């Protein structure tokens, strides 16, 4: 039911883990089935220099997490904020209809982490 790309990202997920003392943290839960994703990122000169994820969820959730980190790494914050859930799903060669909600987690967590970074920045 999953595309080769989904399986590839599930089997060999990119950027798994957690950055120590990250510049931004985004954690979102999935109201639909109770899955959780946490993104940590480092920003330098407005660019996402490093990004890591941890996910508790289905194969699609892990794959979209992995894919979104690949998509935004090295991008400016503005570029990263334009990455949509649909774009992540598309980059994976599509997801089964029942699994579309899993991709929400990924983009939302990245956006939350960026927002966290921007909030912290404006405070100092």
């Amino acid at each position, binding site marked *: 039911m999953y595309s080769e790309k989904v399986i590839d990202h599930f089997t060999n997920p990119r950027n798994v883990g957690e950055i120590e003392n990250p510049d931004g943290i985004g954690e979102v839960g999935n109201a*639909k089935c109770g899955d959780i994703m946490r993104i940590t990122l480092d920003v330098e000169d407005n660019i996402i220099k490093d990004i890591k994820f941890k996910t508790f969820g289905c194969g699609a959730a892990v794959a979209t997490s992995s894919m979104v980190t690949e998509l935004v790494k090295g991008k400016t914050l503005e570029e990263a904020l334009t990455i949509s859930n649909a774009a992540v799903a598309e980059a994976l060669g599509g997801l089964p209809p029942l699994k579309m909600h899993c991709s929400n987690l990924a983009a939302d967590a990245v956006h939350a982490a960026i927002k966290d970074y921007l909030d912290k920045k404006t405070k100092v």
Partner: protein
Amino acid sequence: MQENRNEGLILRRIYLDHSATTPVDPEVAELIMKYYLESYGNPSSVHFFGRQVKKAVEEAREQVAQLIGAQAGEIIFTSGGTESDNLAIQGTVRARGNRGKHLITTAIEHHAVLDAFKYLAKNGYDLTILPVDEEGIIDLEDLVKAIRPDTILISVMHANNEVGSIQPIAEIGKITREKGIFFHVDAVQSLGKLPIDVVKMNIDLLTISSHKIYGPKGVGALYVRRGVKISPLVFGGSQEKKMRSGTENAPGIIGFGKACELAGLRMNEENKALRQLRDKLIKGIMDNIPSVKLNGPSGDKRLPNNVNISISFVEGESLLLSLDMIGIAASSGSACTSGSLDPSHVLLAMGLSHEVAHGSLRFSLGRQNTEEEIDIVIQELPKIVERLRAMSPLYNKVD
């Protein structure tokens, strides 16, 4: 191995999902082929072709009846467990709805039972859904208390398909018979694994299915005790004593009969082997993976072939996918595998949190599984869990 998903590359696949369905026994398959290729008549026909098949269908009826202690005349062949459940429940209500509006079932029934009842509850019937304890077993006192003067049907499954818990069917039968309430039992998972005697257990209606006991898919039966009147759901050519019209799936029925005969012959020996493998697998998992919980009862209160565990901090579908990649087939009660995106209603009814139900894994063993296969699972599962836990934000928070 992980780089290339060419399905052919997995040298050995291990099937541990026998509660979903079983392979067809070779002896059964061979018999069925004969009724597709040679003896293909319609059992209702008068000519030789018809008579020949009719005779075999009636033999199958005997074989099925024998496995559950019934008379052949009390067996109605259907398209499977789902249809039998619906026929029992809706058929009772159609025949006895004028006597009362109250129905009783349990929180852990298969959806074929639960959803049939829920439909009736939306259409003028009162439904009591009995809770279960943490092992997945109902309390007889709850049942007795739930009974009302207008209760017409009580439906309790024999053994649960997810956690393997076994209900006190004979005790319930005593109560229902005394009160004149119809008693339906879904025995899809217990057939061929637990002794069933519809007479001794005072059962009025019993659902069974062929594809869980090494018979073909799409065939089942409903036992209807002589004297118990229910209404048909399907009208037409008056087959199966008008209780289930439509040309019989003769090859399927004949295969089901054979599968019942074989199950009766092999049950005792097979169960001994299954229990050993089951307990070996449970122990192997508990000893080798931290933070694991066995769902359902142990020992004799559990189906001989069922293992159901919850693995904390990981999600069930990820587990299934990872197992499948190395050739191991299992199932899960995780919300992510359910289609409805709710975790298993059985695990929730047993008091598990969403999170713990989410990481549930069911292995259901069968005839051809070996100790060596169980060893492979015990060896591989901890590695998979470790990999997924390293990815889990929940795991990090704990240590």
